[in-house]
């Protein structure tokens, strides 16, 4: 597994810890269950903490804690299970989460661009993904119909801009 964050292949600073493992000194990602069970201790911690949500654990359950979380990792149990696309948009657009939203699990190259559009800024990908493949897949499309979490201008806004320019030119 490799981690791509904001387009760069980087060393993962976070350790994903199992529910019965001891917490490391540094940055850690825990399950929702562990977060809920040890919430007070984890909130008081100095090292950064992230929570990993399974499909079915929606972001509203941690909405009150987002100010304390550095990472929310959203699980794709299978490429076909697209729930986490909605979760990522809710984190960004509804709850205004500014930390890292990480895609973990079954993350296919052909889905990178959809994920980025929905607000994922970190992707945990298979080892065969090279920077060239990432660049190609993250940039398949250069025009977008829908407003999403990436704030890219939509086709509609570009049309309006063109129309305004045409009008200004008389």
């Amino acid at each position, binding site marked *: 597994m490799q981690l791509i964050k904001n387009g760069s292949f980087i060393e993962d600073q976070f350790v994903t810890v199992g529910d019965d493992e001891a917490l490391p000194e540094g940055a850690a990602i825990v399950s929702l269950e562990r977060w809920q069970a040890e919430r007070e201790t984890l909130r008081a911690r100095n090292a950064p903490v992230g929570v990993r949500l399974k*499909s079915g654990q*929606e972001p509203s359950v941690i909405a009150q804690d987002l100010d304390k979380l550095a990472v929310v990792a959203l699980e794709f149990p299978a*490429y*076909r*299970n*697209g*729930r986490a*696309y*909605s*979760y990522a*948009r809710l984190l960004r*657009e*509804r709850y205004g989460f500014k930390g890292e939203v990480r895609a973990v699990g079954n993350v*296919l190259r*052909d*889905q990178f*661009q*959809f*994920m980025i*559009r*929905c607000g994922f800024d970190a992707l945990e990908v298979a080892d065969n993904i090279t920077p060239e493949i990432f660049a*190609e897949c993250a940039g*398949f*499309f*250069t*025009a*977008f*119909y*829908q*407003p*999403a979490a990436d704030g890219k201008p939509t*086709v*509609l806004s*570009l*049309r*309006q801009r063109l*129309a305004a320019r045409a009008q200004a030119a008389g």
Partner: protein
Amino acid sequence: MYRYDEFDQQIVNERVAQFRGQVARRLSGELTEDEFKPLRLMNGVYLQLHAYMLRIAIPYGTLSSRQLRMLAHLGRKYDRGYGHFTTRQNLQFNWPALKDMPDLLAELATVEMHAIQTSGNCIRNVTSDQYAGAAKNEIEDPRIVSEIIRQWSTFHPEFSFLPRKFKIAVSGTPDDRAAIRVHDIGIQIVQDAKGNIGYEVYVGGGLGRTPMIGKKLTDFVPKEDLLAYLEAVMRVYNMYGRRDNMYKSRIKILVHEIGAEEMKRQVDAEFAELKKAGTLHLPLEEVARIEAYFRPPAFEDLPNESTELNKAVLADPDFANWVKSNIAEHKVPGYAIVNISLKPIGGVPGDCTSDQMDAVADIAEKYSFDELRVTHEQNLTLAHVRKKDLHAVYEALKKHDLATANINLITDQIACPGLDYCALANARSIPIAQRISERFADIARQHEIGELKINNSGCINACGHHHVGHIGILGVDKKGVEYYQVTLGGAADEKTAIGEIVGPAFTEGEIVDAIEKIVNTYLGIRTEGERFIDTYRRVGIEPFKENLYAAH
């Protein structure tokens, strides 16, 4: 018709390039068939029994002559000289080679067409009324909102991996030709007391294993909020739709399990949030930009009666039959809507040769403002023909075996590809439709029987819409033998109903006789001018059952 601007074209071109790369990875062996599957399924490529099949989107069923000529050309170059029009107004090619598909799609893109989202668990091609812009009681042309939905749903980043496929249909008239109540979302264009146009939204209709009629979630969504409303429905479905069992993953099951009231509550809550965010607010200038493409063509000022037409009807009885069944009333005096049957006697419903496509393109260019429609009943429609040209149009169609006078009659059947093509099917459906067509070939008898819709499906997935046929035929497999189960009383219009099973299934040898018995029962008990479906609604299933199984 809508024309692509630079952005629409760019997105389609980028899709062709992307798919070319994916096909190259499959052909080089870098991708296994399993890994390739989700990718091809996003682009209408299915693996059938014998070969790959490609499904091309015909958004809301509208085609220009130029586009139809391109489909004819693609059929000759990459297939076996024909294509198949589907119940979702699309076109399927059954025999193209995978290595050719990127080139095929590149050619298709030159006429502003694509195969995007014609399969996969995403929002599929939006379907609509084939009489759009021509129907008398139309509140607004449904193609405007259909095109807006096409754009919004194309490569939607959040909704490309839904629990299951998702189908949206739009109707602009109170009488529903788009079967909106058996779609995941059905949109009925309505007008409020102040004259504002908006949308009534039905959610959770569908056929398949568990047929359900859509529930009305709202009476009125204002125009500028439609995309926010649709996004709210989609988000609730994406988050809460079942993913544990593919047969329980459609939105109809979610609506059924939580109830329409709860569904409405969740959608309303999400809708309120999305409205607050405001990013999906649809500016009326954009609606106007798209609406401009669907302005009425330059209709002539004509008398409503045509002496040429009246004379030809008297002189040519075959033409008279065709006028009686295939012509519908147009909103403009002196014009008519022409339905072209793709159901010749003994033929394969929906099949059309490349030569026929070229012929229809020429006729549309000459007589119907250069455009035509595909219907969900697998026929074609010329929306705006002068009444005085009807005979010439008929003669031109006849030369290409396209003048069958059977629209809405017993031989105008819907049929899925069935076991002849499909990997899912349990039984053949095309040959059954062909035998029924041959049994009732006599045109006078068909007209005597009147409106009667027979829908054939080769398996429980119901691609042939058997649940909503006045007579539905479902192929089932019993220990390796094909049997056919019959339902009665289904309908897909504004009085949508799911048909009722009449009794034990029939063998291939018995099924045509059984259909004939049902028809004869109807003829014996109908009142003056009563259609089959009306008789059924009046008397129920019992008389049909008694006659059918009396001898057994």
